[in-house]
């Protein structure tokens, strides 16, 4: 009954940790996962979100036992 939360790149450094765990709740959104994991009141607009390794939105519903990742804009290639 928990969500595994991952942070990458500059976001990981700003938050001071690579991962967190939050308790799952029914009708939980990705934004709510962010707020619970970071203690912040809202998901910043420039933060990208993925649920189970697929891009999703802040308002996307999150299933129990999901892996939710937050990260800055990607810069590969």
């Amino acid at each position, binding site marked *: 009954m928990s969500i595994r939360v*991952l942070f*990458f*790149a*500059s976001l990981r450094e700003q938050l001071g940790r690579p991962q967190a765990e939050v308790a799952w709740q029914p009708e939980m959104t990705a934004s709510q996962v962010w707020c619970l994991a970071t203690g912040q009141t809202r998901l910043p607009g420039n933060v990208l979100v*993925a649920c189970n*390794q*697929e*891009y999703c939105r802040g308002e996307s519903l999150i299933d129990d036992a999901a*892996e939710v*990742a937050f*990260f*800055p*804009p*990607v*810069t*590969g*290639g």
Partner: protein
Amino acid sequence: MLDIQVCEQGFDPWHELATFQQHPDFAAGKSGANAVFVGTMRDFNEGDTVQAMTLEHYPAMTTRQLQTLVQETVTRFRLDHVLLRHRVGAIRPGDPIVLVAVWSAHRAAGFDACRQIMETLKHNAPFWKRETLSDGSLRWVERNTAG
């Protein structure tokens, strides 16, 4: 044939190409075009000299994203083969970062597919670059260049 790898060690794109084409699938010679793009680290960015770089990624998602974007491109452009390599870890100017090679029946599909894979990769694949500047300070790259 699709061959996609994230490389934790340096790679030689031309060696990778030569090795890939040893596969028996190439024996029939059905492809009339092979478009290749190699991206290397440059020693400047945003007006500053860059002496080194570290590439980080989200391994589980990177694999899925690369497979999805390559498969979509293969379907759209009817590609025969795709070879894709992307580096992670510590690199220096001149080191290869990415290799995209596509084989198709005709050149238009080859050029367009190679470009599409690169652009989609840069926008979607979860890689991040952190630069080491000439004074030793570290800086995350915040956005892609226009291309």
